[in-house]
């Protein structure tokens, strides 16, 4: 897929927290910048521990896959990264979730801004029942971009980055619901890109799509990683092996809480896992 980058007009810089304060970057021994970091994070629903004590780093401009058997808390962990768990009554988080070194769960943090910086693509495509154009323009309009010319260029840019522009450029006014599943998912990706996030979370983005659409999106992920940090939850191990740079393997412990069993470069996890349980999962003995 040819990628054509679009120059964004200078007037389109979106306001963000990161610009306003000094950024603290935490680095690992290898010198990579950790865009997001989980510091002893547990997610609880009332008294039930869904995810226990996770320590994890997500490196900038890399694709990190969270893998594990179903029901082990992968999605819960992902949703903690953009505070979508806040929507569930009784849900709370212990520990810290650091975005560029700042805890997004700190008391004075603007959740709305966090969610702009950390975007999300859902398991089932969920475009708004509006036109393709209005779907992508939804986010920028929230931030005050009302001028037609601005919106046109943002929409084109986002759709190009999502590898959808060529397929829809003549029917931007048509309803998004008329697109195929794979196209709708790419539209959702374009919609997320339009608000200029820094991190894109993907919750099993291909599980509702056919294999051809899946491959397109996997290709897209690798291109997107050049500009964004991608974190993907997947139950498809082959996909994780194909797409990701780093993998984190989660499993439920004896209390049904999800725990991090192993984390490392994908190559290492899949060829030379350190933990016995990882090896069992990789080789398909359960899951």
């Amino acid at each position: 897929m040819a990628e054509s980058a679009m120059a964004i007009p200078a007037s389109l810089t979106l306001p963000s927290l990161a610009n306003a304060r000094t950024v603290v970057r935490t680095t690992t021994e290898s010198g990579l910048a950790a865009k997001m970091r989980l510091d002893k994070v547990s997610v609880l629903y009332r008294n039930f521990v869904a995810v226990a004590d996770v320590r994890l780093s997500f490196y900038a401009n890399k694709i990190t896959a969270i893998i594990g058997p179903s029901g082990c808390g992968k999605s819960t962990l992902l949703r903690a990264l953009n505070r979508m768990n806040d929507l569930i009554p009784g849900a709370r988080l212990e520990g810290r979730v650091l975005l560029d070194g700042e805890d997004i769960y700190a008391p004075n943090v603007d959740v709305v801004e966090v969610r702009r910086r950390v975007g999300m693509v859902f398991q089932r495509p969920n475009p708004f029942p509006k036109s393709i154009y209005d779907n992508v323009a939804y986010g920028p309009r929230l931030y005050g971009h009302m001028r037609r010319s601005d919106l046109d260029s943002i929409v084109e840019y986002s759709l190009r980055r999502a590898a959808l522009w060529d397929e829809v450029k003549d029917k931007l006014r048509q309803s998004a619901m008329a697109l195929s599943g794979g196209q709708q998912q790419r539209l959702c990706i374009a919609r997320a890109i339009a608000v200029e996030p820094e991190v894109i979370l993907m919750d099993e983005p291909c599980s509702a799509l056919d294999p051809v659409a899946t491959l397109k999106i996997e290709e897209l992920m690798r291109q997107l990683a050049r500009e964004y940090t991608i974190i993907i939850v997947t139950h498809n191990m082959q996909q994780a092996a194909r797409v990701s740079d780093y993998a984190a393997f989660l499993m439920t412990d004896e209390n049904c809480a999800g725990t991090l069993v192993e984390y490392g470069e994908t190559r290492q996890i899949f060829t030379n896992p350190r933990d016995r349980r990882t090896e069992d999962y990789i080789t398909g003995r359960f899951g």
Partner: protein
Amino acid sequence: MHQRVRRSSNIFMLGLTGLTTVVGIAPLVWILFDVFVRGASAISIRFLTDTFKPTSLGGGGIWHALVGTGILMGLASLFSVPLGILTALYVARNPNTLLGLAVRFGTDVLSGLPSIVVGLFVYALVVSGHGYSALAGGVALAILMLPIIVRTTEEMLKLVPKSLREASLALGAPEWKTSLQVWLPAAMTGILTGLMLAVARVAGETSPLIFTALGSNVLSTALDKPIASLPLVLFKYAVDPSKVRNAQAWAIALIIVALVLLLNISARLIATWRSKMMY
């Protein structure tokens, strides 16, 4: 900054919805307050047990209206409950047939009909041939109750797990026995709440009775003659110039509102209790 505008308009609009809810509920509180305060001061045992007397003799009571309302409710239930339950049984068993859809459509339309139109219909059907009567009033109220009974019964029937009916059928019971002796009883509390809500709906209906039961000032239990009813008397007394009558009107309003509230709240409580029992 645009962000601040977004944040403050968010809080403002959300607050506005809360405020609107308070404003919306205010009339309810206001009416209930007035009904209870003004009504309570005019109620007495004498009021409830005496029948009509002209104001020159003190105004009398509403016993004739209480009896009349009771008879009308009884007649209306008698006419609407069997028909409603049978219809609901049909719809619950055959939801996707033409007739099932037609019934759903029919109940929706009937429930939206102005009650005065229903009164006119029963007038044309019954009264023009046989005169004003309690029976006619019962028919009119039954028509108003029917959609509620059909709808709630159908929903309650659908809630009963299929396995229950299948168990009965597997034992060799015929369809009709299964429906009447297993299915219906299992849904009975729900059906009863439906009946309560339907009665609450017609307890205060006035306009259909103008054309059917007509109202009366004497105590009567005859089904083929006009009969008194609480809402009719309330209407008459409220528009009457005499202050005595006006005060009595409030007392009647209190009785009707208390009845309606009681039925609605009980139905709601039973529904909540039942849904808790399901787990």
